[in-house]
């Protein structure tokens, strides 16, 4: 069972991701009609939103894996948390890059301290610190435990941060009206494209997570062997 899973993740997953992503790119750039209100720039939405959803899923994985690591103490959960944090960081960065590209022509500004934007930014900062903590702390179980503590605290903090930045901006007069998506996805072809992109980025996330996790496992294995060779 494990063997089959391994094999299929190694061979099927990359191809599946590649084909879905190719179809998604085709759909976004050729198939889907241009939004009547926002124009061509609306197309970035099909990348931006799936990336954002995958970012939050990735950090959800970090939190759950951190709890399980502290509870069970198995290296597997620690590797999973580390991999998910790295992939999530890449996705989060892309969210923060694609967002302003869309916001500039639509809102007329690169950045606004809207609750959603601010929360994403703070999330990025927390997990940047998480990855730094991983490199800065001594290896082995100690570093893994520290990272897990931050993974848990960060995940608990995110809803509170979201609440606070939400009040912060809504009690203040809003500079801009922030309605994500504008006209919404009125056309069925738009909804189809969006679902395709969700699938493509979901697969990309799984595949990257898998690759990163495997490399972590091999790294641990090598360390283990080295340790055994040196001490026998």
């Amino acid at each position, binding site marked *: 069972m494990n063997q089959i899973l391994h094999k299929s993740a190694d061979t099927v997953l990359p191809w599946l991701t590649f084909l879905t992503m190719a179809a998604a790119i085709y759909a976004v750039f050729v198939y889907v009609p241009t939004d009547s209100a926002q124009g061509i720039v609306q197309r970035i939405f099909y990348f931006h939103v799936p990336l954002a959803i995958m970012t939050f899923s990735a950090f959800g994985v970090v939190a759950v894996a951190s709890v399980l690591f502290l509870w069970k103490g198995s290296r597997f959960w620690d590797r999973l948390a580390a991999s998910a944090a790295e992939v999530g960081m890449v996705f989060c960065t892309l969210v923060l890059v694609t967002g302003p590209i869309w916001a500039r022509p639509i809102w007329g500004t690169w950045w606004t301290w809207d609750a959603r934007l601010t929360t994403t930014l703070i999330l990025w900062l927390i997990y940047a610190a998480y990855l730094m903590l991983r490199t800065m702390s001594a290896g082995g179980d100690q570093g893994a435990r520290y990272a897990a503590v931050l993974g*848990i*605290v960060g995940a608990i903090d995110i809803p509170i941060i979201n609440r606070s930045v939400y009040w912060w901006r809504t009690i203040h007069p809003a500079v801009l009206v922030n309605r994500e998506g504008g006209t919404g996805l009125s056309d069925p072809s738009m909804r189809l494209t969006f679902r395709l992109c969700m699938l493509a980025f979901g697969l990309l996330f799984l595949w990257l997570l898998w690759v990163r996790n495997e490399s972590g496992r091999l790294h641990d294995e090598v360390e283990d062997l080295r340790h055994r060779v040196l001490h026998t």
Partner: protein
Amino acid sequence: MFALIRKDLQIEFRTKETLASLLMLGLLTLVVLSFAFDPTSDLRAEAAPGALWVAVIFAGVLGLNRSFLAERDNDCLQGLLLCPVDRGTVYLAKTAGNFIFMMAAQLIIVPIFVFFFNVPATPALAGVFLALALGILGFSAVGTLFAAISVRTRAREVMLPLLLLPLVVPVFIAGVKITARVLAGKPLGEVVEWLNLIGGFDFIFLVVGWLVFEYAVEE
């Protein structure tokens, strides 16, 4: 637990190192921030609550760093962990100690703030102290946990603010909001949701810290 708190306080009374450095850093931050805003402009009054909280946070990070460096330097952390008490109790004692230091520093930093930023010294300042007490409690709850962690990483002085500052964003926002309202002469009833927010933050992270502290100090 009270013995542990007393130990920290006693060390402090004899050396006065932490409190003195907390005060100096808080004072310097206020002075430097004074230069950032034109003394005659209205902007200054608007920026005052923010300046106070920046001073609190900077001084706080310094104090938290010190609280575990001292333990580490003489291997006291080992002794502390050998105490026949629960790790959670050690955490609560350390948090309480940090809270007391930071609040003590506020007794001097707030008057200096009133003095430099030309804030009317009214009974409303009690509201500011309430916000500070709640905010500093949450700040030390999260800070004590991560100070214990960062002290054993490389680049430890830098690591703590990197970990801590994004996590205490809610405390900072709520603190600045409450302070601004109170200084504008509004009653405390208007900021009750912010007070609830900090209160909730304090409670959640005291519990979380109490639960996970043992993973942060275990060898």
